């Protein structure tokens, strides 16, 4: 058995608060520790998910949070994997627990993001694909989201109205989440009236960039039982697989795909392989899920995830949405938290926040957005440079 227990979950509300990422992460860590009923000095290891926006403290996030909480001698690790940073931090914590290196591990991620498009690190760096896509093409993140959305329209007949409906659904859920940045319902007409950013996507189809922090306290199942948690939420799988050559779907920050001229494309796309690995590790499949939290960087991308995590066949994401299956009250709610549509992206915190939501849902403490009887959930995300993650949690 490779389960680890989730003893505590905590978040700093998402928003634009104008403070340092350290402040948000530390607040989230304190909330998670309080939720676990543990003292920070009980923690044997701290794993920080790095941010590239906080200077040196951001690159050594584990130590930064350990210092802010008060040095107590814990083992420290800092990881970076773009949008999957938080899940890699969870994966690292789990490995340490399962290897017997630590009984209790604190996982923290936080960011303070600037307004507007994410931009590459400064300087003249023609060897950096992220720098090149801006220099040569001006290809922002939403440009790639626009390419995917248009491709769906051409291949599957998705419409801008379908995309808008994802925003309407997620905004309705986010309105019920006190930790979300945007807590106002949004209508399809409001999406349609917002400015086009990257054809066919409009401003309200694309997630914002936010400040926020999230943390988890994880432990061995033995420690959980010994400390009054006989039936904790368990993390059963953490997938952090890389793509398989040749990668044939154009992805950020690349100017081109791999060539499939010499080696045929793998049967599964990278995104679907991320979820597949998590299901295999967890020994369960999409039909056993109660809910899913997926990375809705854009509305259209959420539909792509429905297919990638196996909720429906390729091309049927919009149909699943139209049926209401993925809304609160539906067969398989997706982004019951409100998703990135309601939070905005705080990169290293986001994958941790997804697991916080699963934790509360599986405990039955998600309040007005509770998915009744939730027993199993998956999170999924994808980041730049071949990163992606999926976490399966069960109760």
């Amino acid at each position: 058995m490779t389960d680890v227990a989730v003893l505590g979950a905590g978040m700093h509300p998402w928003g634009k608060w104008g403070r340092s990422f350290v402040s948000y992460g530390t607040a989230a860590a304190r909330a998670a520790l309080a939720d676990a009923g543990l003292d920070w000095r009980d923690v044997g290891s701290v794993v920080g998910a790095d941010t590239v926006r906080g200077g040196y403290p951001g690159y050594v996030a584990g130590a930064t949070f350990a210092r802010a909480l008060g040095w107590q001698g814990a083992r420290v690790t800092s990881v970076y994997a773009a949008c999957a940073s938080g899940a890699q931090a969870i994966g690292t914590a789990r490995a340490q627990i399962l290897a017997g290196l630590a009984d209790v591990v604190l996982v923290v991620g936080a960011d303070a993001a600037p307004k507007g498009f994410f931009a590459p690190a400064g300087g003249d760096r023609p060897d950096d694909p992220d720098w090149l896509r801006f220099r040569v093409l001006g290809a922002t993140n939403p440009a790639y989201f626009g390419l995917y959305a248009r491709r769906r329209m051409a291949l599957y007949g998705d419409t801008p109205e379908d995309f808008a409906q994802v925003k309407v659904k997620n905004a309705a859920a986010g309105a019920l989440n006190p930790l979300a940045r945007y807590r106002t319902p949004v209508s399809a007409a409001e999406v349609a009236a917002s400015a086009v950013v990257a054809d066919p996507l409009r401003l309200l189809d694309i997630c914002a960039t936010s400040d926020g922090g999230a943390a988890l306290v994880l432990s061995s199942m033995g420690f959980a039982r010994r400390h009054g948690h006989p039936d904790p939420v368990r993390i059963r799988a953490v997938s952090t697989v890389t793509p398989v050559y040749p990668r044939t779907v154009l992805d950020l920050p690349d100017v081109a795909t791999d060539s499939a001229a010499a080696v045929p494309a793998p049967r599964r796309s990278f995104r679907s392989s991320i979820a597949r690995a998590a299901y295999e590790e967890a020994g369960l499949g999409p039909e056993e899920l109660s809910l899913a939290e997926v990375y809705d960087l854009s509305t259209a991308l959420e539909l792509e995830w429905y297919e990638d995590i196996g909720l429906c066949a390729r091309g049927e994401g919009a149909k699943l949405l139209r049926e209401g299956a993925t809304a609160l009250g539906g067969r398989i709610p997706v982004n019951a938290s409100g998703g990135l549509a309601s939070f905005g992206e705080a990169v290293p915190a986001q994958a941790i926040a997804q697991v916080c939501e699963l934790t509360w849902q599986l405990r039955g403490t998600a309040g007005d957005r509770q998915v009744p009887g939730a027993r199993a959930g998956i999170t999924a995300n994808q980041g730049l440079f071949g990163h992606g993650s999926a976490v399966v949690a069960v109760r």
Partner: protein
Amino acid sequence: MARTRRPVVAGWFTDGDADGSTGRTADGTAGSDKTDGTGVAAAPVPHAGFRLLGTRCTACASVFFPREDDWCRNPGCPGGELVETPLSRRGRVWSYTDGRYRPPAPYVSDPDAPWEPYTLVAVELAAEAMVVLGQAAPGVRTADLAVGMEVEVVPGVLHEDAEHVWTTWHWRPVADGSGEAGA
């Protein structure tokens, strides 16, 4: 004052006009993308010799763009030599979008000038079995494009400054009945 034509990235496409005069193109014919600093939007003739340049592994025939010059990235390849190879001149639109807002640096644009949206096209090249992104030629809007439409690569100008005309590649819909040979 004559400005020097300079590719935005060296070695990614044929550079037949580096000194601002008519130069040699990949197939040995004379190119004609002269500029007086006003851009090449009105370039009068097809740029039959203009190509994107990738590399091809001599052992497994994998193609790389942007060019890979050190090691073949096919994990099953014993490791061959990487030799420069021109990519197909024509392909089909995989998808397209546009940039309605000014991208951040290092994209170069005049902050005092009104923002002019540009179109981005992802193009599927059949022979290479890969998708290559690029800006569309000036004047090509998303309404002019469709997934599956045939496009060709043409030389273009990304921007100009006091010393240089920074050149790039553009994708442009193939005019019906142009009679040009495909790649």
